[in-house]
């Protein structure tokens, strides 16, 4: 297997190969997006930035919910790196399957998972299109040539490589919901700070998460105002100038707001830290879950290594 193998395919396969995925993507993506957006009324979403009520915590609805947050973070992070290091498609696919199982166990919100998958498709789609065409030819590769068009050569190694990356990225992305939304955000961040991450880092995440929604609202109000005055986006200088003023105004207002927010925090006794949201205790179940999961990750890496 040192030579490059060629597979000749009649030219009419090409439109088939391009059109079918394109049509499928054009049909499925908007459907997924719509479904992800309309499945529930937005107000029904559990807001995981709200601190937990003391006695309600720790009695979550799934095995993952009941997992100690520190164990969960460490395990999932280590596992993600293990998955990212895989080199073979079969093992990446196995990791993807494992993530799907975890997703079913953890009973997270389907539509949020869908939004994550949709967000990934841009980058991965680009890889899937570009890599088969641009990967350099090595001995042992299989090339697919379409009829007499010898400038268009699809390298199957590129297809496999791109598919492996896509499977790994999906496998990790599917774990993000089980990682994050099975505990309120303050608890997750508290877990991080107990793991040694500076307290301030977690507080900054919490604050910017909160104000993200405030400023989104502000931006939406300003957009509505611009539309009411007849503004429509076009590709020209005036649009850029108007949008730049919009950004500038957003910054001016948010900087002013920042000062007021901070004054208000100090007035309520903020002294550089928030009260801790809960008590964390590690029990033997937590260690067991971590052990099982780490073993799964190690097995994936081991088999990947065995395959050369």
């Amino acid at each position: 297997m040192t030579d490059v193998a060629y597979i000749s395919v009649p030219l009419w396969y090409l439109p088939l190969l391009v059109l079918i995925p394109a049509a499928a993507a054009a049909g499925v993506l908007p459907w997924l997006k719509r479904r992800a957006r309309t499945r529930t009324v937005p107000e029904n979403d559990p807001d995981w930035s709200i601190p937990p009520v003391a006695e309600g915590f720790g009695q979550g609805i799934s095995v993952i919910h009941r997992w100690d947050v520190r164990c969960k973070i460490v395990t999932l992070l280590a596992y993600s790196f293990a998955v990212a290091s895989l080199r073979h498609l079969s093992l990446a696919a196995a990791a993807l399957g494992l993530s799907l199982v975890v997703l079913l166990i953890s009973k997270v919100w389907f539509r949020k998972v869908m939004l994550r998958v949709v967000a990934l498709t841009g980058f991965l789609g680009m890889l899937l299109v570009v890599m088969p065409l641009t990967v350099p030819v090595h001995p042992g590769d299989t090339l697919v040539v379409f009829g007499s068009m010898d400038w268009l050569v699809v390298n199957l190694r590129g297809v496999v490589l791109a598919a492996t990356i896509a499977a790994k990225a999906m496998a990790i992305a599917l774990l993000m919901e089980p990682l994050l939304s099975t505990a309120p955000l303050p608890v997750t961040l508290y877990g991080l700070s107990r793991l040694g991450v500076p307290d301030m880092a977690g507080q900054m995440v919490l604050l910017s998460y909160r104000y993200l929604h405030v400023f989104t609202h502000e931006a939406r109000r300003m957009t509505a105002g611009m539309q009411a005055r007849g503004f429509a986006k076009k590709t020209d200088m005036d649009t850029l100038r108007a949008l730049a003023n919009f950004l500038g105004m957003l910054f001016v207002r948010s900087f002013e707001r920042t000062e007021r927010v901070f004054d208000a925090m100090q007035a309520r006794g903020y002294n550089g830290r928030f009260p801790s949201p809960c008590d964390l205790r590690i029990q033997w179940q937590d260690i067991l879950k971590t052990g099982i999961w780490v073993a799964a990750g190690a097995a994936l890496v081991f088999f990947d290594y065995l395959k050369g």
Partner: protein
Amino acid sequence: MHISDGVLPVAVTIGGYAVSAGLAAWSARRIHNRDLPKVAVITSAFFVASLVHIPFGPTSAHLLLPGLAGALLGPAAFLAIGLALLLQSLLFQFGGLTALGANALMMGIPAMICGWFFQTFKGSTLKRQTIVGAVAGAMGTVMAAAGLALMLMTGGEDFFGVAKIALAAHVPVIVIEGVMSGFTIGFLARVQPALLEPLFHKTAASAHD
């Protein structure tokens, strides 16, 4: 464009985490501790601003804003950008969790350089500030694109094609970003010039105490 999980070699992702943690710590040290909550709130404004879509022919581009963030925040920019990328990764899956360190480097380092560039050359007239702001904005995007291509190329020869395409895709964004940054800085220079001074600078802040 943010790199997703599973693209970069593990050594690069871990190295990226280590270097950006160091830079973030340096960035935090340059800011008064008291100002960190303010940086957090401003980060969310930048986050929202980067979601604004600019029409470009039949498609649209969203802003990256490393240049503008550098110009407005100075040394705090690295911290703000790291935080914004973390949120983007956690909330929207833009950029993978394991690639977060690498993504922070390729956006944060240009921001710091642009911030320095803007503060050094901004002068005092409105016109000059607008032009320097535009250059900083364009430069930030060029460097971010180059960083992206470099990061992709650490994956080996197989990724060179992807890196080239990614570079090419940034060309229109560079122009848009430059013009937008220039106009935005021009707007701020007229409306609230105080924002163009390096905010949260430790020496400046401690003068109040």
